[in-house]
C-alpha cells in the first residue's frame, strides 16, 4: 500500500497573528512553523500503517523552499520520501489540484490530509482532491482500520460519530483520534540523521484554478474589560439583565 500524507506548514499554535504590506499578507516575522496539528495525527497513523502493514509513506506539500524544515521533520518522524510542489499555497482549490497531480503520478492508494489547516482554516483540500480523482472520501476522520479490501472509518459528526465502510483508493481528512495525543512522535537523533539522506523531491506546479483571493486581513477588535462579579447572585443578574443570555 502506498500512502501519501499531505502536510501543511503552519504557524505554531502559540503564534501571535499579525499582518503586513497594508494588511494584505500574513506577517511571518518571528513566527515558528510546524506541521499542521491535524496532519500530524495523520502522519502518525501512517507510521503505524508502515510499521504494522508494510505501507510505503510519502509526504507532500505545496510550498516554497522555506517549508523544507517542516518536511525534514516529517521525514525524521519516519516518512520514506518527501515531495514539495514549488508554489505558494494561496488557495485551497489550487493546492488540491497540485496534490491530485502528485497522487495520480505516484499511484497512491491512501491519501491522508488534515481536517483543516490551522492558518487559513479552509478545510477543503482533502475533499477537493478526492473529488478531482474520484477517490472515496471520509472527512473529520477519527478512526481508520484497513483490513485488506475493507476499510472501516469513523468520522466525527455534530453530537456524535458515524461509522463508515469504504474502500481504497481513499482520501481522509484527519484529526485527533486517528491516533491519540500520546502517540505523537518527537523525532529522535537517529530519525533526524536519517532524514538528511532521504529524498526531498521538488516538482514544479501544473496550471491550476485560483478560485479565491484573500484581499485583506484584519484582527478582531480588542476586547473590553471583564466585569468581575463578587458573588453568584450578581453574576446571574448580569447574565440576565445585561448580557441577556439567560
Amino acid at each position, binding site marked *: 500500500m502506498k500512502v501519501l500524507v499531505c502536510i501543511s506548514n503552519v*504557524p505554531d*499554535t502559540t503564534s*501571535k*497573528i499579525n*499582518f503586513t504590506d497594508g494588511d494584505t499578507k500574513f506577517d511571518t516575522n518571528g513566527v515558528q512553523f510546524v506541521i499542521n496539528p491535524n496532519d500530524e495525527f495523520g502522519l502518525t497513523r501512517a507510521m503505524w500503517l508502515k510499521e504494522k502493514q508494510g505501507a510505503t509513506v510519502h509526504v507532500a506539500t505545496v510550498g516554497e523552499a522555506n517549508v523544507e524544515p517542516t518536511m525534514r521533520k516529517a521525514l525524521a518522524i519516519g516518512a520514506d520520501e518527501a515531495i514539495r510542489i514549488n508554489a505558494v499555497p494561496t*488557495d*485551497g*482549490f489550487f493546492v*488540491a489540484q497540485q496534490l491530485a497531480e502528485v497522487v495520480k503520478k505516484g499511484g497512491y492508494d491512501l491519501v491522508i490530509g488534515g481536517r483543516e489547516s*490551522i*492558518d*487559513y*482554516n479552509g478545510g477543503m*483540500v482533502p475533499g*477537493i482532491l*478526492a*473529488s478531482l480523482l474520484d477517490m*472515496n*472520501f471520509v472527512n*473529520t476522520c*477519527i478512526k481508520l482500520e484497513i483490513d485488506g479490501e475493507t476499510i472501516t472509518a469513523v*468520522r466525527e*459528526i*455534530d*453530537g*456524535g*460519530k*458515524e*461509522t*463508515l*465502510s469504504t*474502500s481504497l483508493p481513499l482520501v481522509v481528512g484527519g*484529526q*485527533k483520534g486517528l491516533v*491519540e495525543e*500520546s502517540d505523537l512522535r518527537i523525532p529522535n537523533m537517529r530519525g533526524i540523521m536519517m532524514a538528511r539522506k532521504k529524498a526531498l523531491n521538488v516538482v514544479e506546479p501544473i496550471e491550476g*484554478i485560483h*478560485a*479565491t*483571493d*484573500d*484581499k*485583506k*486581513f*484584519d*484582527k478582531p477588535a480588542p476586547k473590553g474589560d*471583564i*466585569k*468581575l*462579579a*463578587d*458573588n*453568584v*447572585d450578581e*453574576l*446571574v443578574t448580569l*447574565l440576565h439583565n445585561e*448580557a441577556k*443570555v*439567560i
Partner: protein
Amino acid sequence: MSVIVYTESENGKFKKNAHEVASYATKVAQQMGTTATAVSINCSENETLGDYGISKVLNVQDDSLKPFNAKAFADVLASAISSENATVLIVSSSSDAKYMAPLLAAKLKAGYVPNVVTAPESTSPFQVKRTAFSNKGFAHTEITTEIKIIGVSNNAFGTIENKTDITVEDFSVDVDSNFKTKSTNIDKVVGKATIADADIVVSAGRGLKGPENWGMIEELADVLGAATACSKPVSDLGWRPHGEHVGQTGKPVASNLYIAIGISGAIQHLAGVSASKTKVVINNDPEAPFFKAADYGIVGDAFEVVPELIEKLKEFKAQNS
C-alpha cells in the same frame, strides 16, 4: 439565476442552522436582485422556510438519501444548481456541510469559502468576510469563479424573519444508491444539546482535578439546557470523551454563552471559543489569562461557585417561568 441554499434537516425536521442559512441566502439574493431557493432533503416542514424569505423549495424525498451521504448529497445539489442556473450556493458550518462542500467545489469548479461571518461585502466582485487563523483574524476573500460556495459560520449571521410566499416543488435526482462510502452506524446522543448548535456551552478544564467531579458540570449544563465541553488536556487524560474537546485543535464554539470553569485560557483554547458572544470564566486564580478574554467572571473555587450557581439558576428559573 438564483441563490441556492442547502437547508439541513434530521428526522424530517430542520436543524437549527437551516433558518440561519435561509436568512443568509435571502440577504445575498436581495443584494444580487434575485430570489433564494432552498434545497431540502427528506424534510416535512418545508413551508417554514417562507418565514425567512425563501420563495421556493426544491423538495427531495428519497429513501436512498437516508442517512446523509456526502457524495450523493453533493450530486443532488449540483443538479439543483444546474436546473436553477444558480451561481451562489449557501451552506452551513455543520460537519455534514464541511464534508460535502469541498466535493461540490471540485465538481462545479467553484470557489468555496467556509467560516463566513457577515453578508457579502460586495457581490461584484464577490467578496466575503471570514475568520482565519482559528479566529485570531479575519480575511476578506474574493471568490473569482463563476459559481461560488459560501459556508456560513454558526450563529454569526443570525436568523432574520421575512415572511414570503413560498412554493414547494418536488425535485428528484437519480441517485445511484450503491454508495462506495456507506454509513453502517450512527452513534449520537439524543435529547441533549450539541456543541455545534447549543445556545449555551458549559466547559471545564484541568482545574476540576478529576473525572469524578464532572457531576456538577453536567448538572449546571442540564439546568441551562447547555452542551458540555472540555479543554484539550481533559480529553487527552481520558477524563472526558474527545468529542468534547474544544479549541484550536478541537471543535470550534460559537454559542451565545460560553462558561469556562477551571480553564486557564491558553491561546489555543481561546482561539477556538472566542467566537462565542458572551464568555464567563470561573477560576480561583485571578491571574488566569482567561480573565483577559472573558466578559464576566468570578474569582473563586469552582467547587464552591458551581454548586451555588446551580442553586441560584434553579431559583431563577422557577421565578421566571
